[in-house]
């Protein structure tokens, strides 16, 4: 059997606002638009994904929070409605998702063999988190590829961002070995914002873009520091400063997604493709991708 590979890594933030603004038929809420810089960036990345041959999407989400190890979706179908607990006015999405259970089981086994507490989630009533749905919808609105969702074990809460970095790295390396052995071509998705301080009030019209800006300038400066390192292909340094970045900006990287993905991809030393950066209710959101194949790697923005 041919060996598997990671064909693309995507940093794909999941504010439900971007799905809301798209007005897909699956979502009950209606918007007049908004957050175009992010949405258009997503559209372009989705077009690139259409040009890539791959079998499955593996997504690491901060909104399936687990404290007892790392959990993997373990049933072939999930069909239900996801309502965002924070923004129910924006996101009430009817989903019908296929899961690559074989790949999930291999990753769970490799993680477990690496000493990481791991388990499969096989309760059919389990509701898929809105982070998975938002990122996957924006990257692949046709939903024509199976997904695997990996929960985020909250090591940053229980220990520290440094421990999170170590644990997420170990998980990423285990997942990479599993993908290699599976023979599958896989797109990795790290679903989260960068800086993550929210406004605690909302405009009467949520998509009123005159109200949208980063929470404060220090968040912006930190976000730009990371973008600059990504452009230069210095992902090892990004992960090295991740604990400080996470603490300084209350970043959603605390869940470990970016560290997991970079470890799985061997800490790329080539430039990231930057697709867009925009604030959503004060948080800093970057869409970026890492294409291991130099011949298809692009300078997007």
């Amino acid at each position, binding site marked *: 059997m041919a060996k598997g590979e990671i064909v693309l890594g995507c940093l794909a933030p999941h504010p439900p606002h971007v799905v809301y603004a798209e007005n897909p038929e699956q979502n009950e809420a209606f918007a007049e638009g908004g957050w175009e810089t992010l949405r258009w960036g997503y559209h372009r990345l989705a077009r690139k994904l259409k040009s890539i041959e791959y079998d499955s999407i593996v997504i690491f989400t901060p909104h399936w929070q687990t404290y007892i190890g790392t959990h993997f979706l373990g049933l072939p179908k999930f069909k239900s409605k996801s309502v965002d607990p924070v923004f129910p*006015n924006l996101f009430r999405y009817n989903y019908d998702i296929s899961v690559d259970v074989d790949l999930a089981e291999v990753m769970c086994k490799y993680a477990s063999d690496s000493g990481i507490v791991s388990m499969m989630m*096989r*309760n059919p009533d*389990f509701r898929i988190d809105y982070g998975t749905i938002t990122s996957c919808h924006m990257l692949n609105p046709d939903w024509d590829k199976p997904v695997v969702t990996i929960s985020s074990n909250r090591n940053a809460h229980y220990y520290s961002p440094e421990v999170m970095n170590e644990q997420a790295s170990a998980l990423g390396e285990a997942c990479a070995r599993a993908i290699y052995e599976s023979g599958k071509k896989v797109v990795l998705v790290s679903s989260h914002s960068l800086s993550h301080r*929210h406004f605690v009030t909302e405009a009467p019209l949520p998509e009123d873009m005159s109200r949208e800006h980063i929470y*404060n300038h220090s968040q912006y400066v930190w976000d730009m520091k990371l973008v600059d390192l990504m452009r230069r292909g210095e992902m090892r340094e990004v992960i090295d400063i991740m604990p400080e970045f996470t603490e300084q900006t209350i970043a959603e990287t605390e869940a470990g997604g970016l560290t997991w993905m970079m470890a799985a991809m061997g800490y790329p030393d080539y430039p990231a493709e930057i697709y867009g950066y925009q604030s959503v209710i004060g948080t800093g959101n970057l869409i970026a991708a890492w294409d291991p194949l130099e011949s298809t790697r692009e300078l997007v923005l």
Partner: protein
Amino acid sequence: MEEAEVLFGIYCPPHPQPLLSPEASEGYGKLRSAFDECKNRIEESGADLILVYSTTWPSIIGHQIQAHPEPEWVHVDDDFHFLGSMPYKFRMDVDFAEEFSESAKARGLHSRMVSYDGFPIDTGSVVALKLLNPENKIPACIVSSNMYANRAETIVLGKAARDALKTQNKKAVVVVVSSLSNRMFTEHIDPAEDRIHSSKDDEWNRKILEFFEDGRLEDLSQLSREIHGQIRVQKVVAYKPAWWMAAVMGQHNNYEGEVMAYESLHGSGGAVATLTPSSGSFGDKEFDEDDVEFYHGDRDVLNKGMV
């Protein structure tokens, strides 16, 4: 206007074991028995309303109040999904939710009601309402715990709930859903061997329970920051449930306290305790921090260029 009438308060844990697997350990069974006793007391109390503050319902946009008249779903816990599903259908007091939300706004808070089919009611609220009010004999109201809110905002939210109770002249049982120490084991355990994660957590939990037994709720409220630093995993900015509970119940130490059960739940501290207003009890209070009536928002010092 009449004084708000809080018949009694219940402090109970959010974990699903007492609901889904009470037979798995002696401790889970004791917690379940305590929930069952509380259910009986609520039914006999003549309450018009069960008012729930849940630490497992985090909000960001101000304070959210459940206002769907009959929320219905099958809930599954993120960690303990293997214990089974939790189908629920609750009866909410929509009029009270509206009054509570308006009262919160009148005190300077950002508040809104949520009424959406399929809204994900949190594990803690589901466990509490299924065990304390299984037949929906009494309508309920659930309010979220804003992840950024600190003391002033949380106390004002409690006072807003009290305002709403006064305005509608309703008799309420107040339910706070929260662990004591909240550090769980990070690996799977045999429930029969469950224990509090550390001796330090256990000692602090028992000290908190002494305060409950003495009816010293306001003193517990004053200790919240210390409790947060000592035995709470730093998921949010502060340990808030005692602030809210004290504010809604009148900010004093005159309660009859009863600790009905204290057991470990995968390492965390789970207690079912009740506080009933009385004219006796401890009485003294140690007000270390200012009381606050109206929320004026963040001080916003960064944007004012203050040094």
